[in-house]
């Protein structure tokens, strides 16, 4: 399930969303292409610089995913090694195209039966759901959201749930391993989840935020990242991505 924000964060919403000096608005403390929105003068200048580049170079840079900086001078000196948010990061239309492609494959492979888009969820925080019992995906996103909660990422995330479900044993009476087995894999998976959807909450007690503690939620996040921004996913979470590719790759030879 994709929710904005994680329900446990609702009462801390103001703390987590910050208006920054350069006109960007950020969810959490890390700059990622998925947790930033808006932008001010520096964004306009970066757009001008970017549009002055040769078209082939511009396209190549947009398709790749490098670490993000909001510092214009830093980016200008090293455009191919760094990304400026919404300038040479992957456009949201491309997120959507990549997600649609993998969703189509999921239907072809009988991993998902139906996908419903533009669903009006009663719960205002929900952006997407995977109903495992009926293999239905529902998407209901808002174009004003951070891009980690918009159609592309949310759809890819829910398809990730469906692939996990297809891999996972159906019954809970057989001992089977989790997808992410080592602490490195889990740590890397959490990094990707936070990159896409912002910080997780640290709970005071015996239970963990479901995004953090659930193997399937982490798998869905790693899957979404691998589909939407494969280079960044492999750079940030090499072990987690490799493990996911091995497991999910067995379910469909056309997936990766």
């Amino acid at each position, binding site marked *: *399930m994709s929710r904005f924000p994680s*329900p*446990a964060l609702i009462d801390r919403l103001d703390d987590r969303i910050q208006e920054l000096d350069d006109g960007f608005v950020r969810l959490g403390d890390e700059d990622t292409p998925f947790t930033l929105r808006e932008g001010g003068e520096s964004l306009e200048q970066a757009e001008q610089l970017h549009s002055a580049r040769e078209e082939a170079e511009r396209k190549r840079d947009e398709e790749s995913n490098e670490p993000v900086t909001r510092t214009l001078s830093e980016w200008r000196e090293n455009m191919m090694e760094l990304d400026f948010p919404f300038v040479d990061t992957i456009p949201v239309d491309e997120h959507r195209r990549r997600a649609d492609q993998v969703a189509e494959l999921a239907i072809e492979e009988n991993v998902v039966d139906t996908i*419903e888009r533009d*669903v*009006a*969820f*009663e*719960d205002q925080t929900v952006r997407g*759901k995977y*109903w*495992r*019992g*009926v293999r*239905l995906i*529902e998407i*209901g996103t808002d174009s004003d959201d951070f891009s980690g909660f918009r159609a592309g990422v949310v759809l890819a995330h829910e398809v990730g749930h469906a692939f*996990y*479900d297809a891999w*996972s*044993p*159906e*019954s*809970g*009476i*057989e*001992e*089977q391993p*989790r997808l992410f087995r080592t602490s490195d894999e889990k740590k890397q998976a959490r990094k990707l989840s936070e990159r896409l959807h912002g910080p997780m909450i640290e*709970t*005071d*007690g*015996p*239970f*963990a*935020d*479901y995004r*953090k*503690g*659930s*193997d*399937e*939620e982490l798998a869905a996040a790693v899957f979404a990242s691998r589909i939407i921004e494969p280079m960044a996913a492999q750079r940030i979470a090499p072990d987690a991505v490799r493990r996911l590719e091995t497991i999910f790759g067995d379910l469909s030879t056309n997936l990766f």
Partner: protein
Amino acid sequence: MSHQPTVSNETEFDGLPRRLPDQDAVLVGRVIGSGPFTGLAAYYIHGQGSILLGQYQRKEFMPEYTVECESRLMSACVREFITANVETELSSVGEALLTAWHFGDLTSLSHKQAHVYALREKAGFSRDETAAILNISPSTVDTHLQRAKEKLTAAENLVQFVRVDAEELADADPDFFEQAGISDDADSSNDITPLS
């Protein structure tokens, strides 16, 4: 309009459905007492292999937290839930799964057999309900139950056998010791010869 899920008619804890088929979820308990998790329902999610905690509203379970458990087994997850450092209450399915955990731990039953046996024989769930709770077919329930009963009967026979007095056994079946290759000769090979 979003999907309208179906839920099972059987409810516990003032209206929480025992099963949520569209979410492959089975009610195992809830958090009671006082604290930040109080009142949350605990559902085991098949496929995911985890217990999630959250609110049930509008025929849907909305997860918020998870019980961190390395094992995907229903019974092991219930055990993890019940031993968490908060006050919890198990549902009838949760109680049966905890029994299954003990069976699996203390007897020679396999995990599959322990789960089926605890739900069918100890908690009294029907064949179809057991199948739905465990997400297996009714015929698989029969197979595991049959095998569990055979194992437990064999274990019971063994216990009775070791309790039987040797003389009673010899009287009842004079050929037993000979057939079993056990000699009553004092100079048997079991005698220990001290090392010189």
